[in-house]
């Protein structure tokens, strides 16, 4: 990714800087743009937040690094390690648990040769267990980047994996990008239908 002549190793593109500037105007205080800024950073830094990303957010919002770390670490969707190109988040909460979520989880672990929380050697996949995604009518629910997949079972999860292997969509970067567009006025024109 190009650096756009940013000083101090900053990586935000001109577009990201413009989006952040716009989002800051939504609030009475600059600091309120913390969550949006972290989402922009997660997009710019390849789907996760290495220390430089947190530093860049701290610099741009004029807040101490410790504060940025404290906020970012509270939320589960900010990644502190690089995830797989497809990060599978399996809901194992109540309604999914009673409809086979753990079987889906075990099947995935076996199929990919990794446990929840790990990334495959080729960087293609990672898996995690998550709390209710609030789409329980379609249990078991798996979130992959910006997309929910419903009615996943131990029997059909192979098909999901095949579909993802052949797809460049639903990456962690795409998730962050979608959320930034959602927070940007006029973002729906830019977003695909």
């Amino acid at each position, binding site marked *: 990714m190009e650096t756009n002549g940013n000083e101090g190793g900053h990586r935000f593109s001109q577009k990201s800087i413009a989006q952040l500037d716009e989002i800051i105007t939504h609030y009475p205080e600059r600091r309120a743009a913390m969550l949006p800024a972290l989402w922009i950073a997660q997009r710019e830094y390849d789907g996760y937040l290495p220390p430089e990303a947190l530093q860049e957010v701290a610099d741009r919002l004029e807040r101490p690094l410790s504060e940025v770390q404290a906020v970012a670490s509270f939320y589960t969707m900010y990644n502190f390690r690089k995830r797989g190109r497809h990060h599978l988040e399996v809901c194992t909460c109540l309604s999914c648990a009673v409809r086979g979520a753990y079987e889906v989880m075990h099947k995935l672990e076996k199929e990919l040769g990794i446990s929840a929380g790990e990334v495959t050697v080729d960087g293609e996949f990672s898996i995690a267990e998550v709390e209710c995604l609030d789409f329980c009518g379609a249990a078991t629910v798996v979130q992959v980047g910006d997309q929910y997949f419903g009615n996943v079972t131990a029997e059909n999860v192979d098909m999901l994996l095949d579909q993802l292997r052949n797809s460049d969509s639903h990456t962690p970067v795409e998730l962050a990008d979608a959320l930034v567009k*959602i927070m940007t006025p006029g*973002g*729906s024109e830019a977003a695909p239908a």
Partner: protein
Amino acid sequence: MPETRILLKHRDEPGIEDIETYERLGGYTALRKALGMERQEVINEVKSSGLRGRGGAGFPTWIKWDGIPKNTNQPHYVLCNADEGEPGTFKDRELMLKCAHQIVEGIIIAGYATLSKVSYIYIRGEFVESAKMVRKAIDQAYRKGYLGKKILGREDFDFDLYIHVGAGSYECGEESALMSSLMGERGQPRLKFPHAPLPVIAGAWNQPTLINNVETYSVVPHIIVNGGAWYASMGTQGSKGTKIFSLSGHIAKPGNYEIIFGMPLLDLVELAGGVTGGNLKAIIPGGSSVPLIPAEIAKDFTLDYEASQTVQYRMRTMRLPVVGSGGMMVFNDRTDIVTLMLRTAEFYAHESCGKCTPCREGTRWLYKILYRIVSGGGRPSDLDILMNICDGIDGRSYCALGDAAAWPIMGSLKHYRHEYEYWIEHKRSPLGDNFVPPVPNRLNLNFELLPAR
């Protein structure tokens, strides 16, 4: 009794996400009508409707609206709680996905009634699809002049609506934690009334703030168009209008059902096609935070805010809610209650924000002890310990998440004590040897109390 669709009336209408379609079906006439009324008249209409908040607590909506100071130059904020995170609940997701304009219209009317200029809808970060629809609705509403400066030509009404997305935290659905998160902080709650002013006096950025749930705002346009009296003609004495219930678990036709308050609990289960995979064992009627109701007594319950369950602990008698957020989870007789409670406890232990000791420590202890029981190391004294911990959390935690963690376990100890005792004595599920409990072990807990696995 059938469904009565008011909020979900247009959910299958093609093109309803476009403002033209919404307008053709009567959309934004409520806003026009409201702008022709005095602000207080709008609030009075909401008052006479009897509308109560749909986020879980059922607080009368008009009291909040009316509580926002009038005749001040302070900024006022309107917040929409779209952080839906309660296990079993997926109504706000569908309302945003299918009927986003209805929410936007309700928020604008609330802004007008409360003299606000700025509003935010806080949407959980996982809800990308739904949030895209809200983005689209807001962009279209700006283009049509329903948002922005001098709305519909009114010199005295400028109103902006921004989207703030979350980043994964159940606790951010709690209203004061939501405000913390909106202001760029960790999603932890703030001091509450009577120790601090109500949000309507000092909420976000210490300014008067109105916060309501997605479903609550969605009702507003209908009340304005048809009148509060019309809305109040449906339902029971204390619960007016319709409510959306999300059905999931062992149910033939899972999904959202909009019904008039007062429907018998089991009628709704029938409406959703009945139980699958066995007979009914228990129902969690209103999201994971309300205690489960065993099949044997389910026929005694109706779905309204008046309905409650009584739990006794030592000298205390507590009446616990039934409706909650409307997330109804149905379980058949192949469901092991102790493992289900373990999974519930895991949820709360994971989502506890860590601010106060009873909840931070208590939820982890509940989890550890339930884990010990399903790992075969349960002791007869564990049941008293569980009840003791629940008592230590309930009413003693900083926000309602703690109470919500304790109630389901208290309820299950009342109704399913024999299943706990079976687990402890036989070190296996009462459902038989083949039953393999899912053993979640994702929390980074200290397991020194547990037998080696």
